[in-house]
């Protein structure tokens, strides 16, 4: 029997080759991933396994199509004037309630993720809609990018659709039942805290300059301006609401149909140019994903994946938590779904004996943090594109503290799974819902008080300037 460390050699070769090509030879990340995968296969005595390289990439076929089409959709509704119009109306409607507006826009930004289970889709749709509004409120573009990236990730984990949890559940025969409340308890307070943490200071300091507000094209084009968005929502909701009647179109087709409507609903545009620019903008990350697919396949082929997984889940409990906190987001860099499947399932099995719903919920959120992890960093990268920041690390730097808090909260949620088990699955549902409604009421009151505090602060600032 060969030593387990035999699998280390190709893995080390792959990691070393990737680092050398990326940092020493300054090659694009995607090319470095392909090169590292080929080298790993050669070192493991597999030759150049073309079939494996292509098959690895095919694992991301759906994701690649979603990225390309969501990007086209986002660029077309940007060109039609829909994004500006919605941002304009959001700000004017909630001008005197800035803290409430921040929270509402955060929840709205999350909503696409909640329905589609994809942070990319959330960032490029509802995230793109609220981004101009956040910036018009005075929040710098990098922080705005961080907010919509976090919203995309939290939306992807919030119910009703949480794909990582479904993947983990599928691996341990745990049905997707009873996750609604545990996921809401985990994600909603974090969403409120994060948007206030990232946005409140900027909103407090700045009064809205109406001349800088995005323009509204509502008067010019009327209700037809909203048609692409309505089409998107209708197609998604129809499929979810009537799964046995409405066939699955698949997210790429839904985005494409909605994008195809856009050129006839608002400002004039050249759909071909818009689509071409959108795909060009998405191309680098699509190439990285293709490379990641190859890298993963060769890791599985040569045993590098098993080496990492077996090393991580064999740690004692204290270190196990640490390894969850570090390894799941790291592995999520290649794919949050992959992290949920490859690490989430063994981690749930290693933590059996406590409430698995709470554990899987927390693990799914930690895995989702991988969408902020370079080189792919899907959420951060697309958020940067939405706010037109060419260097996505500028956006990611503002995500560091929220992401750290999120991982910490998730670990705490897991460590206190016994308490949440007794509370959330309490037989006295009336008392449970009473406590939850009371808590929501308290949060709402606090946000309303924050509104007054922000406005007072603004008035005092203006007074001081006068």
């Amino acid at each position: 029997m060969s030593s387990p460390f035999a699998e280390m050699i190709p893995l080390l070769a792959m990691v070393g080759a990737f680092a050398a090509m990326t940092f020493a030879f300054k090659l694009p990340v995607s090319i470095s991933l392909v090169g590292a995968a080929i080298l790993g296969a050669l070192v493991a005595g597999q030759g150049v396994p073309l079939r494996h390289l292509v098959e690895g990439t095919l694992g991301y076929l759906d994701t690649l199509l979603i990225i390309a089409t969501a990007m086209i959709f986002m660029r077309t509704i940007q060109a039609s004037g829909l994004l500006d119009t919605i941002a304009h109306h959001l700000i004017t409607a909630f001008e005197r309630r800035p803290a409430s507006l921040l929270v509402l826009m955060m929840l709205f930004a999350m909503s696409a993720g909640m329905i589609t289970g994809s942070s990319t889709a959330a960032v490029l749709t509802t995230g793109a809609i609220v981004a101009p509004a956040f910036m018009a409120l005075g929040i710098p573009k990098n922080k705005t990018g961080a907010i919509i990236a976090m919203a995309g990730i939290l939306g992807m984990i919030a119910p009703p659709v949480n794909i990582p949890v479904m993947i983990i559940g599928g691996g341990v025969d745990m049905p997707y039942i009873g996750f609604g409340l545990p996921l809401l308890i985990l994600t909603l307070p974090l969403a409120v805290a994060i948007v206030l943490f990232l946005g409140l200071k900027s909103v407090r300091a700045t009064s809205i300059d109406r001349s800088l507000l995005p323009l509204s094209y509502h008067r010019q084009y009327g209700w037809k301006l909203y048609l692409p968005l309505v089409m998107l929502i209708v197609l998604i909701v129809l499929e979810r609401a009537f799964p046995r009647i409405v066939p699955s179109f698949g997210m790429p087709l839904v985005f494409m149909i909605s994008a195809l409507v856009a050129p006839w609903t608002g400002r004039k545009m050249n759909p071909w140019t818009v689509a071409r620019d959108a795909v060009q903008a998405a191309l680098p990350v699509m190439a990285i994903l293709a490379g990641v697919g190859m890298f993963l396949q060769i890791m599985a082929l040569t045993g590098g994946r098993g080496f990492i997984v077996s090393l991580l889940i064999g740690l004692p409990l204290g270190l196990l938590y640490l390894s969850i906190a570090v390894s799941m987001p790291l592995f999520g860099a290649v794919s949050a779904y992959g992290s949920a499947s490859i690490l989430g399932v063994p981690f749930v099995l290693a933590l059996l004996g406590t409430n698995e719903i709470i554990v899987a919920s927390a693990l799914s959120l930690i895995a989702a943090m991988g969408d902020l992890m370079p080189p792919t960093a899907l959420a951060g990268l697309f958020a940067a594109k939405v706010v037109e920041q060419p260097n996505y690390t500028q956006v990611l730097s503002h995500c560091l503290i929220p992401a750290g808090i999120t991982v910490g909260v998730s670990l705490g949620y897991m460590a206190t799974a016994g308490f949440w088990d007794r509370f959330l699955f309490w037989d006295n549902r009336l008392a449970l819902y009473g406590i939850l409604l009371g808590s929501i009421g308290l949060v709402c009151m606090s946000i309303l008080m924050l509104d007054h505090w922000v406005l007072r602060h603004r008035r005092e600032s203006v007074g001081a300037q006068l």
Partner: protein
Amino acid sequence: MTPQRKYGTWWTALFLLLLVGGVLLIVSHDFLAMRVDLPIYPGLGVTSTAMLSDYFAPLKGTAADTMAYILQGDEPGGTAFVLGGTHPNEPASSLAAIVLIESARVTRGRLVVIPRANRSAFTCSEPQEGYPQTYTIETANGSREFRYGSRGTNPVDQWPDPVIYINAAGQSLAGSEVRNLNRSYPGSPDGNLTEQLAYAIVELIRQEDVDMAIDLHEASPEYPVINAIVAHEDALNIAAEAAMFLEFEGMQIGVERSPDNLRGLSHREWGDATDTLALLVEAPNPAQGRLRGRTSVELIVEGIDPFYVRAAQRGLLYVPFFEAGHPIDERVGRHLQTIAMLLEVYNEYTDKGVVVVDVPTLSSVLEHGVGAFLLQPNTTNATN
């Protein structure tokens, strides 16, 4: 406006296009090869064959239509059904069914065997798992190849996956499970291809009046339900008694009751939708696991993996795992002995018995190798 960066010329594009085209042309040969069914050689016990589309006509001509082998005894009796190859990445399941087709005989009642339940899933590999496309079993007359496929229906036959899959039993699952046959029961006549396949299998159970139905599987060693029989509540007594007798014979096996709230699986839906006694049998396959080392034909056939040995030492597994591993001989042997014992126990409780003879035991498969119970590659009566 930001200046456009120039990445190359039309010639660069043409070169890259030709390069990608060339690579795809080469690998398409490998991918297309998966669509050729490798032969099965029906033994003397097989009295007739049928296609699944005989039970549900719309399946005819689709990639999901698959062959059922019928072993009819001289004496009248009941009907048993063995389903292999639900998940083609669980090779002992399909191989045990093929051994029954090529070796077993029925003296009383009838045995229906499907070795490639999800035939479409045999035509592709699971992306990012690094699986080989075939594995080899040595027989007395040379090597014989078998397909190692995917857990789900080939996306070429059924695509796209929805974001979430709500199966015919109302269970919400991750979208990719839409192509998992063992999440699609009881199926739907107007559903997607996998649901139609599930429906056709349930129709076979109904139309053939199957008394006992056994679904063969394998699981990764870190999965809690392993070396086990999962039984619908109606079949729980038979499963428990069979497990007890198997323990007496030196084969450890657990019994699990089919969960009420885990819908779409064979052991739940077959039992609920029909009068059959529904059972599912699991064996340990390290090649499926997330902790496995190098993915290779040797791992599939010999079942030896140093990572799993270490994981077992740390108490992370639900099945013992030593240096000798869990070879395919052992896994197939376990399945065969479990099937034989389930039928034996069933026969004690009914007048409609099914007596199957020449089913190799675990010890005989371990002694001679599974290849000894397969017919030879030069046999002429092969079926695809």
